């Protein structure tokens, strides 16, 4: 029997496991596995919940009102709803110290992508510069994952940046504001393409517009952030439910992975875990081990393994994340329009700005405002609250946000390391991020270029409302144990097998060699599937 232990049930862990099972392996998945509740009133739309729920205040704002966004709430335009807080609930022992980085981490069934916005973009060869693999290595796995999760989009002007080998499904119906922007783009296309070197098209998102297996097509309930009640929006827990039905799959939740035990030949023999219910420690033996705990957690497990094995705590350099800039805009022609109450909540359009080289492209997701917690937006208007509320009513259908994503490259001064704890305990992770020297200039140029495109679309950008999100906010963490063609310590080979521990594989973003300005999770899933299919 071929046995493998996988840490983590997030996007990376579940797609690796699916592939390993297909290749005949017996898979044991170790996870803390925090869980949420089933969606309430699944047939209701977002606005209907406010009138139909017995206690809408607790549902939308939380029993302790911790989803009320007050003026000091870090300047974000949205927060997480109470029913999704479990996703970010961190066990006490996994606290970390940070500098220049504000990470989100998850110990939930399905991981961080239980709250993702579904943006799923494939990579080109130029995006893989520095990787020992090419687009050809990933292509069948992009298609395999797309088939599994369902990716909607259209073949349009953006397609050359996101080769998709015809796996795209029909997208969800676009809202009136998004439709208007697309029409304006078609009229101004020549100028936008030539003068701004930009293109606009439909987003690629992991959401179904029609039924697929036991998932329903999107019903335009507008509840995406609160949890899709019909599973149209893909989350990894959907794949986990499928895995749980497989006879060669065992899901061990309530377990925190500590470190790997390494024998004298440099092979991992067991995963040391803490059972959070009993507080006791256990060993789980297997032939192979896969870390898919998310870049930060996998790095911590690897570093603790190294510390106990070699007596040192090295730095893992090369930590990356996409810098994001949030630019609100107002589309003048949409002012005073009636609100449609049934809508898909997340982004339906994307904008790509070409860079000097292909590697330097800028990717933006364009979200027209639909359902949200409006008080967070209203309070940011430069007006008294009553006036701002009325202003919001008039402008609501004309409001939108561009989420600008910049690429990142690995640097030694951005790293993770550990501060060892007491004997027998896991260490404290320490994360340091230092932006590139010319980052401020890159941000300035990106903002100017996006504003120019928006102007041609008939939109204005209200002064003073564009916000630079802190590093860590995009939650696209990568780069601490990179793939390398040359054998070297603290790196993995092209199949993501550790050069240091031969039966250890890393199946999450830790192995990325650079971070293009594209949401990475679809590539995480495709790469995890590739590892399962080719190295197992």
């Amino acid at each position, binding site marked *: 029997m071929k046995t493998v232990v996988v840490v983590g049930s997030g996007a990376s862990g579940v797609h690796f496991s699916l592939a390993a099972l297909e290749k005949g392996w017996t898979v044991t998945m170790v996870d803390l596995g925090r869980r949420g509740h089933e969606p309430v009133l699944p047939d209701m739309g977002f*606005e209907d919940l*406010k*009138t139909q729920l017995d206690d*809408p*205040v607790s*549902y*939308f*704002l939380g*029993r*302790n*009102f*911790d989803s*009320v*966004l*007050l*003026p*000091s709430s870090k300047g974000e335009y949205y927060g997480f709803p109470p029913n999704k807080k479990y996703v970010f609930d961190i066990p006490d022992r996994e606290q970390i110290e940070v500098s220049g980085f504000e990470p989100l981490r998850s110990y939930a069934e399905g991981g961080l992508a239980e709250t993702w916005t579904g943006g799923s973009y494939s990579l080109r060869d130029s995006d893989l510069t520095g990787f020992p693999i090419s687009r050809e290595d990933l292509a069948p796995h992009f298609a395999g994952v797309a088939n599994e999760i369902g990716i909607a989009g259209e073949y349009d002007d953006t397609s050359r940046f996101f080769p998709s080998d015809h796996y795209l499904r029909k997208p969800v119906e676009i809202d009136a504001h998004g439709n208007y922007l697309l029409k304006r783009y078609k009229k101004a296309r020549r100028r936008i393409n030539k003068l701004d070197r930009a293109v606009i098209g439909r987003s690629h998102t992991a959401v179904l517009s029609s039924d697929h297996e036991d998932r329903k097509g999107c019903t335009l309930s507008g509840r995406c952030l609160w949890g899709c009640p019909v599973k149209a929006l893909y989350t990894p827990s959907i794949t986990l439910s499928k895995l749980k039905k497989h006879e060669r799959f065992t899901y061990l939740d309530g377990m925190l992975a500590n470190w790997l035990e390494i024998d004298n030949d440099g092979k991992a023999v067991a995963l040391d875990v803490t059972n959070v219910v009993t507080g006791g420690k256990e060993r789980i033996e297997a032939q192979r081990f896969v870390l898919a705990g998310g870049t930060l957690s996998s790095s911590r497990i690897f570093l603790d393994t190294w510390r106990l094995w070699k007596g040192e705590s090295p730095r893992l350099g090369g930590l990356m994340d996409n810098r994001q800039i949030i630019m609100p805009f107002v589309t*003048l*022609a949409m*002012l*005073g*329009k*009636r*609100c449609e*109450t049934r809508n898909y909540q997340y982004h339906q359009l994307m904008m790509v700005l070409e860079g000097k080289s292909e590697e330097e492209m800028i990717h933006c997701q364009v979200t027209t405002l639909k359902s949200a*917690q*409006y*008080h967070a937006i*209203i*309070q940011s208007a*430069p*007006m*008294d*609250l*009553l*006036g*701002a*509320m*009325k*202003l*919001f*009513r*008039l*402008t*609501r*259908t004309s409001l939108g946000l561009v989420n600008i994503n910049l690429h990142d490259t690995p640097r030694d001064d951005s790293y993770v390391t550990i501060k060892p704890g007491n004997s027998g305990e896991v260490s404290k992770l320490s994360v340091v991020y230092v932006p590139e020297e010319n980052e401020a200039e890159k941000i300035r140029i990106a903002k100017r270029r996006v504003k120019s495109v928006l102007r041609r679309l008939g939109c204005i950008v209200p002064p003073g409302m564009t916000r630079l999100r802190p590093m860590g906010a995009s939650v696209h963490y990568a780069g601490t144990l990179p793939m390398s063609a040359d054998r070297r310590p603290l790196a993995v080979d092209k199949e993501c097998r550790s050069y240091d521990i031969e039966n250890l594989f890393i199946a999450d973003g830790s192995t990325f060699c650079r971070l293009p300005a594209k949401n990475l999770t679809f590539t995480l899933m495709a790469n995890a599937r590739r590892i399962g299919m080719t190295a197992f």
Partner: protein
Amino acid sequence: MIGLGEECALFFGYLTKKEPAEYILEAYRRAHRDAGLLPAEASGPDAALLNFASHGGWRLAAADAYARIFFPASLLRKKLILALALAENTPQGSDRFNLETDKGFFRSIVELSFLSFRFLTFLTIGVLFLYPRLNFRTRL
């Protein structure tokens, strides 16, 4: 100073022109008492601003405009935002956030101009009445 229930009715009514249901009053009280989102008692400049606003009418509108510019993180604004969040998420207030019919571009521009004018007027009143007591030098 007025009690939390009266305060909720004042702020909720100011924003929605409606009386809050008992459920909303209860939630407003809970946010201050059990949940500890906001302090139940105000002190110093926060108390002065709240006192002025608690008279309702033009004084509340002026304090709202004044706080937006000079004290964006004041307790008054936090309380108003809480009332707004309660309005947004309950049947009594949620319809105040949607336009059910098209207003049209020009009517919207006229209304927007009126809102700006209204804001500047109340801000001026706020400055006249509140600036001597609460200004940039005041620490909340």
